[in-house]
Structure formats: C-alpha cells, structure tokens
C-alpha cells in the first residue's frame, strides 16, 4: 500500500479506503459514511468512515464519533473547500479525537490550511513526492485566526 503523511511523518498506510460500495469490508476499512449509515448494525468491525463533499457533518451529531479510529474527508477537487469546514466541525463541534485523513484530490501546497482545520493525515495521489510535500507542512510560523490547535486569535496572543 502507498505511504502517507501522518502527524508530520511519512509512514506505512495500514487502512484501506473503500471507494467502491461493493468492496469487501474488513477491520482496516474506511467505509463511505452513507454506506456505514445504512448498514451500521450489520457492517461489523471497521476502522472508520469517510465523508464525501456534500455529506455535511450534521448526521454525525447524535453519534459517538470517537468510536471511529479514523474519519476520512474526500476532496473531489483540490479547489473544493467543503472538507476544510468538515474537519474543523469534526474537531470543534463533535469533539472528534481520532485521525482525520485527507483523501482524493488535494495538493501539498494546501497542507498549511489542512493542518489548521484539524487534518492530521494525508493520503496524497501517487505522483506526489512525500519528502517534498513534508517541506510544505508549515508555510507560516504565525497566524491571525484561531484554529483547531489553538482557538485563540492573535489578538488574544499578542
């Protein structure tokens, strides 16, 4: 399986992102949220779910999200910023503590923003050089707004 970046390191990927609803589910699977929702009583042990852009997070509001080791967020295009709000809401509103993984079409130059809204793992496309991507991890040493790591805006930190 291709490697990925997690918590600032390049590591082996141990989870399987199931994009096809027909694929067989295992304890390592990251299952589409809609599939999980309709089969949750029968689906058995899985690693977590992934959100499609457009899913929103409202349907998770009454669910213990910390039952999942991982929640993936799919970017259908790197210019589709819905996933940025989803990650932030998973962390700040739903109190999700596990791994949030960016999936699909996003680019290393977005890492600075993705980290700030709560993503901590990144499954890039095969063409991305992960060593080079790591260099783009933290483009700015300071920020004006609060974020998931520190909710205080700069005016509370100056």
């Amino acid at each position, binding site marked *: 399986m291709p490697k990925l970046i997690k918590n600032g390191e390049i590591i082996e990927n141990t989870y399987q992102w199931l994009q096809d609803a027909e694929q067989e589910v295992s304890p390592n699977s990251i299952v589409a949220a809609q599939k999980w929702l309709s089969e949750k009583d029968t689906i058995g042990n899985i690693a977590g779910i992934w959100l499609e852009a457009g899913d929103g997070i409202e349907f998770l509001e009454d669910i213990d999200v910390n039952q999942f080791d991982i929640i993936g967020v799919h970017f259908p295009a790197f210019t589709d*910023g819905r996933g940025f709000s989803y990650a932030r809401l998973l962390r700040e509103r739903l109190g999700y503590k596990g791994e949030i993984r960016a999936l699909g079409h996003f680019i290393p*130059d977005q890492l600075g923003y993705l980290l700030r809204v709560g993503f901590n793992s990144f499954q890039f496309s095969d063409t991305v050089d992960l060593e080079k991507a790591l260099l783009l991890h933290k*483009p700015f040493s300071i920020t004006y*707004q609060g974020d998931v790591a520190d909710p205080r805006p700069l005016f509370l930190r100056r």
Partner: protein
Amino acid sequence: MYQYDVIDQQLVEERVAQFRDQTRRYLNQELSEQEFLPLRLQNGLYVQRYAPMLRIAIPYGMLSSAQLRKLADISCRYDRSYGHFSTRQNLQLNWPKIEDVPDILAELAEVQMHAVQTSGNCIRNTTTDQYAGVISDEIVDPRPYCELIRQWSTFHPEFAFLPRKFKIAVNATESADRAATQVHDIGLHIKKNAAGEIGFKVIVGGGLGRTPMVGVTISEFIPRADLLTYLDAIIRVYNQQGRRDNKYKARIKILVKALGIEEFRNRVEAEWTHLRGKESTVPMSEFDRLASFFSEPAYETLTDQPSSLTSKLTDSAGFARWYERNTFTHKKAGYRIVTLTLKKAGQAPGDATAEQMQKAADLADKFSFGELRVSHEQNLVLADVRQEQLVELWDAAKEAGFATPTLGLLTDMICCPGGDFCALANAKSIPIAAQIQDTFSDLDYLYDLGNIDLNISGCMNACGHHHVGNIGILGVDKKGEEFYQISIGGASGHDASIGKILGPSFAQEEISNVIQKLMNVYVEKRSEEERFIDTYRRVGITPFKEAAYAKAN
C-alpha cells in the same frame, strides 16, 4: 494609518517566500498549470490577454506616500511605467513577468504591502469609503474595523477555497455609501444602537456579474464584539452549501436567493450559536489597539474660507469649478478633502503613470500628512488639505493631470481595462470611455447635467460595475464583432438598484450619440435640480428608449 508590527511583517515575508517557492516549482514544472492557478490567483497573479496581471492590495484604500512611490518605482522597473487603480481599491500592473513577481512581492513587503487574496475564490481585499475618518457625519471611523477584517480574512484556514470569490465592503455614514456595499457578498453598515453601542447592519448576497442583485439585510444589528464570529457563521454556511457545480451560480447571492433570506438567516443563526461568545469574540482592547493607528493627524486650529481661498473663488472660474466638483467638506474647520482625478481625456480611467504616482506622493507629503486614499471611482484622494493651500495644490494638480474638474459627472466614469488588456473581455471599454470624454468635453454642459454615474464593462463579469451605473455600458460579442448594450437606472449607494437594459445593442461608433440622446431626454423631462437617476425613476424607461432608437428623419 495601520503600521505593521513584527508579526504582520513576518507574515508577509513568509508569504513572499512561499510564493517564490511556488513560482519556482511552477517554472520547473513541478506544479502543473492547474495546480498553480489558484495559488497564483490568491496572490493576485492573473494570466491575461497579452501578459500576466498582478493585482496589488490597497487595504481599505489607504496608501502612504512612501508606498505610492514604491508602486511607481516597481511599475518602472518591472512593468511599463504605469498602473491601473481598480474599483476595489487595488492597483493592477498589466505587464509583469511571472518570474519577476516574487521579487515584486518582496519589494512590496518592504513598504508593508502585498497581493494576498486580491483574486481567487477566497475573501478578497476589504473596501470602504475613501473619505473615512475625515467626514463629519460618520458614525465612527470604519478603518479599524476594516483592518480587523483584513487580519481575520488573511490566510483564514477554513475559507481559502470557497465556491467563488468573496467581497466585503464597509460603510459608516447615513448620508452616502461610497463603497457600494449593497452590491457586495457582504455589506457592513456601522451603526450605533439606542444604548450607544457600536455594531453592524449586515447585508448579504449582493453582487454584479451575470446575475446582478442588490443585497438583503440578514441582521439589523450585530454588536461589534461579535462581528468575526458572525462573519465566520455566514461564510461557513456558504462554504458548505454554496453551489459548486456551476461557476456562474456559485456566489453567495445565488444561495441566499435559492433558500430565501429567512431560511438562510436561520442557518446562519444555527451556526452562530456554536461560535458566539467563543474565542473569536473581539475584546475592547483590540478595538482600542486598532483605533490607535487611525488617530487624527496633527491638525492645526484653522478657520473655514481663508481669504486666499475666497478671493481665488471669485477671481478664477476654473478654480471655482475645481473647488466645487473635486473637493469635499472636511470635519475640521479650515481643511478640505481633495480628489485627484484620474480621468483626464486621453488617459484610460483609473490609469496613472509612474510619474503621476510620484507626483501624487509628493502632493500627499506637501499637502496631506503624507497619506492618500484610493476611491471606488478609480481616483486618488488627499484627505487633509488646508484650505489656504488649495490654490497652490490646484496649480500642482493641473500640471500633473489630476485636476480634471469632473468628479461625479458623466465623464468621471468607472471603466474596466476591457479587451485591450483582459482575456475575459468580449469588447474594448477604454475606446468607449475616450469617445464619451471627447464628445462631452464642454464643462458647462457637463455641470448642467450634474451628477451622473456612467460605468463601462467589457464583459458580463462586470468589473466596471455597469449594472449600477445610472448609465451602464456593457461590451458584448456578436459573431466576432464588438457591440455595446446600454442600461439605465442603476445606482450603487444607499438607494442601490440594478439598471434596466434599454434594448438592442449598439455599434461602437454610435455610443456617444446614444448617450447624447439620453441626455437630451433628461434635460427635457427633468424638473429643477432633479438628478438624472431621479428623473429616470419618475418618468421610466420609455422616453429614453424611444429617443435612443428613434430613426433619424
């Protein structure tokens, strides 16, 4: 004006370094065209018809003379010795080389300037009244609030990839809205409530382009401490629910229209309940800190109408005209606000040569505490001129081509760069502006016509804001030929409205003739002192339409 501290400075320098690396990787083909596109746009870099275009932010229109000199210098060394001031308080360079842009940004950072988020699907440069802080009837100076919004929107981690561009404008006076707030994604009107507390009336979903709309009020009063959490709530709803399937239906105005303001408001309120009162609530200490940068300059105690002014007003009709049109009442006795117009015949509206920029910087140093503003109507403003210096300033402004005494008149038009520069344009707009300037060169006649906003756009994207011109001209393409559609009845102030299209479009050479016919109808139908827009609103479109399309007999 606002001065960067070490943190602000470090951030723009880190941005320059980031963009230098992105540009290097693009030129090395490590970043594809498609990947580089939104990255360069968020740094104001377009690829235009003939060359790249770099849009430099002038946050809420404030410029120091040192900054303007730097812009002049950059335009000489990296471009063709001129720049174009846009309607949203930016300066555009039309001919930079992509490989030079990181160096240009590094030089801008030396004078606390940047091109951050001047384009792309993110929160753009916030704009406001060019007379902010110097007019007597404003509720409070809006600039500290604009700076607060600037910082909040800069590299906002959640909102860098919105469905579409996002523009915010702020106004703080009841008597006028010089920032066209009602045709922005969010318009903010600073208010004081009955208890004397400062807050904002929030207008959402205005905008021009293909589907022009006047915004609607989402809240009558948001206390200032809650401004950022409320903005976060609005934009979070938009980011998740705005359309992304069709770029022409992706602006927030389409979402607001589709849901209806009640439902949109409910969703924003639901979001806001989670955010209100949390860390992004702005403490008074921060308002005080920001306001301290916009304290009054060292005004002298003076009286209005010094004798040097009154005698010149009597002696020189030319000076009196300029004084009447291009200067504006100041809150302090003995001072006057002066607009340096960039609408000289033969020069594209909003364009300034490097020499003019240098000259304007000199005038700012000599006459206005070293500061200038850039206006929505694409002019420069010296906000703090002593009345006893007006004659001297007038002479200097004439020499530099800044004294065309037509502010607010038919020939003080807003005009986009059009097909001469822009890859999006369907038609040229600068030659139309030139044609109208040539035809309507008689000052007495222009004065008799009075205030008329004429706005010209070279395409549907409406950079020239043609929809909200009292007269709007839109370039259209018909089988490879350039034609122009004319609309009337638009307005961008507190009485904002979208103009109505007169009828079939006209050939380029007919435009000034058509405008002349519209003016004839106005002169015939108006009652005394009635503005063009008011006559139109009273008599309707029909007489204008009939005159414009009447066959010559």
